[in-house]
């Protein structure tokens, strides 16, 4: 479903990704772990198509299609979703209106009519319940004044609305207390099925107790230096990363 081949990327003159290979099949959950500055967030941004990263070598493929030159919004239409580590605050646009715009733009791109208002409201209600989001929250400006936990919950709410094929969760656990973590993880697990895939980027093993990965990869200095099953995460928790670095 998602295939990353020998991916090299840089920002300005600094090479950050130095040859990443990764294949994610439908129904799988992959975890990418690694110390600060190893390139985790860059990898997430490159998959989502952020323009200030330059891919110098290699490719990202979604269902066999090379995503080079595909704009971020088109990647979204094709089923890529990035849950941001730091969701941007946008005063003046409510969560609901933002979601309506996003859904209808996606539908437009797929040649579909706009979603009828009633259906949209039903969908919003259903998905917000999944994330235990208060109705009042939906009329607030997007991420403005949200707590860390509310922001992350809102990201997963958007994921639930957009139903992506591949969701990349970038440090979704940071800033969450244990209750919020459980709600978010529960949301992700309910959205998970045999046809979609999740890539969890995290520092800590904690989130992986709730979202159980099929594979764990360790990213260091722009490369995957070790891959394994979920037991690897536990080992990392215990030993840290240093033993892998050489």
């Amino acid at each position, binding site marked *: 479903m998602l295939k990353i081949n020998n991916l090299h990327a840089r920002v300005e003159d600094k090479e950050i990704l130095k040859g990443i290979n990764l294949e994610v099949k439908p129904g799988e959950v992959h975890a990418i772990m690694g110390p600060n500055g190893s390139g985790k967030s860059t990898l997430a941004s490159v998959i989502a198509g952020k323009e200030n990263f330059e891919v110098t070598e290699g490719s990202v493929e979604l269902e066999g299609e090379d995503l080079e030159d595909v704009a*971020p919004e088109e990647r979204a239409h094709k089923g890529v979703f990035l849950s941001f580590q730091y969701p941007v605050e946008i005063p003046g646009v409510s969560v609901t209106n933002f979601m309506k715009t996003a859904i209808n733009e996606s539908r437009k791109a797929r040649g579909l009519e706009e979603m009828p208002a009633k259906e949209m409201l039903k969908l919003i209600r259903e998905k917000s319940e999944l994330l235990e989001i208060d109705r009042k929250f939906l009329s607030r400006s997007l991420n403005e004044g949200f707590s860390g936990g509310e922001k992350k919950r809102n990201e997963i709410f958007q994921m639930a609305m957009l139903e992506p094929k591949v969701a990349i969760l970038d440090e979704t656990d940071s800033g969450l207390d244990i209750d919020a973590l459980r709600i978010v993880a529960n949301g992700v697990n309910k959205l998970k099925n045999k046809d979609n895939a999740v890539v969890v980027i995290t520092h800590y093993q904690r989130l992986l107790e709730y979202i159980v990965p099929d594979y764990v990869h360790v990213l260091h200095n722009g490369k995957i230096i070790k891959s394994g099953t979920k037991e690897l995460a536990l080992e990392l928790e215990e030993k840290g990363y240093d033993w892998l670095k050489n």
Partner: protein
Amino acid sequence: MELKDKLVSSFMAFENTVDLDSPIHEIRSEAIKNFENKGFPTKKDEAWKYTSLNSLRKIDFSIFPKADNAIEYKDVKKYFLHEIDTYKIVFIDGIYSSFLSETTHDGVDVCLMSSALTKPMYKQIIELYFNKVASKDESLTSLNTAFSREGAYIYIPKGKMPKKPIEIINFATGNEASLMIQPRNLVIAEENAELQIIERHQSLTSNAVLTNSVTEIFAAKDAIVDYYKVQNDNANASLIDNTYIDQKGNSAVKVHTFSFGGKLIRNNLNFFQNGEHIDSTMKGVTILGEKQHVDHHTLVHHIEPNCESHQDYKGIYGEKSTGVFNGKIIVEKLAQKTNAFQQNNNILISDKASINTKPQLEIFADDVKCSHGCTIGQLDEDALFYLQSRGIPKKEARALLMYAFANNVLESVRIPELKTRINKLIAKKLGVNLGFDL
């Protein structure tokens, strides 16, 4: 003939049409003298450094338009806030249109300056208020004072509130090749009175129009005045708006200025706080393109203690448009515990657009809170990427961000139908098809 000479020499002809025995005559005579001495401001005047009237001064404006310019309501309906019932004071080429207006004397006076200036029953009030807060020094205000004859007259007695908002609309028909109009408005809210006013200048053709308007607003103790200026005129219409506000203790006056169109707009908005616990609010949304120019000059004069002022102006400038924001705050020595906030944020969406922004604080008291901030920027790239990553195309994402940026100022608009109108105007100006209803 230069416009100044034409105006000065027309003054006598104008005076012959009005009552020379009226006490206003003397005020007018003084005013024309001041204008004759000073003339139109030029770029040499600090306050006009970035706004030139040169091109306007060369146009041979007609000063005395014909009286018989009728227009049909259906042709201009869209310029009214027709979604709700309002009082209307309408002028066509500077002349009152009783056909399009809806005035009242039912407990409050919503009527005409020409009546107020000539009828004995208004004499006392005119003597108390007319030209009392307007500058006697500023030349364009003097020019308006010299020719003051028509405009809106609104008097709300103690504790009263008109049943509905009041619209003041000046239409220009284009029957003259070029027309200069000088509306003169007087708004008085007595103790504990409350009212809402929407003012609009609308040219109906592409012929040149120059409006030099003066509005005096008096808010007595505990009065609440909401004033909305909708500036969305044609490409050849220019507006110089001089608004002077006198506030007494505990009053709250809010002026919202929406500048979306016109050739040249100059807003001189002046607040004078003569009492304690006064709240003065100025909000502005400016969205310009083409070669449009807007200049917001605000002044808040904090004279007494424990008062507040809030200024929030947002601007989006495209194509070759230019903008100016000059916000002056004076805090007198007596005015301790003043809270004065000023914010001016701008987005330039074209390399050829420009904005000059300048806060000007003169603080003589030592226990005050004053803050000011100006920003000039492009759109936030991270925000843009965030929206795109949710499937919103770049063009729509940009528009949505600009919409959100401007829209934020509208929270304080207290007429919901007007808010929706302005929302839609903003969306239209930004060329966005929002995926949701407003």
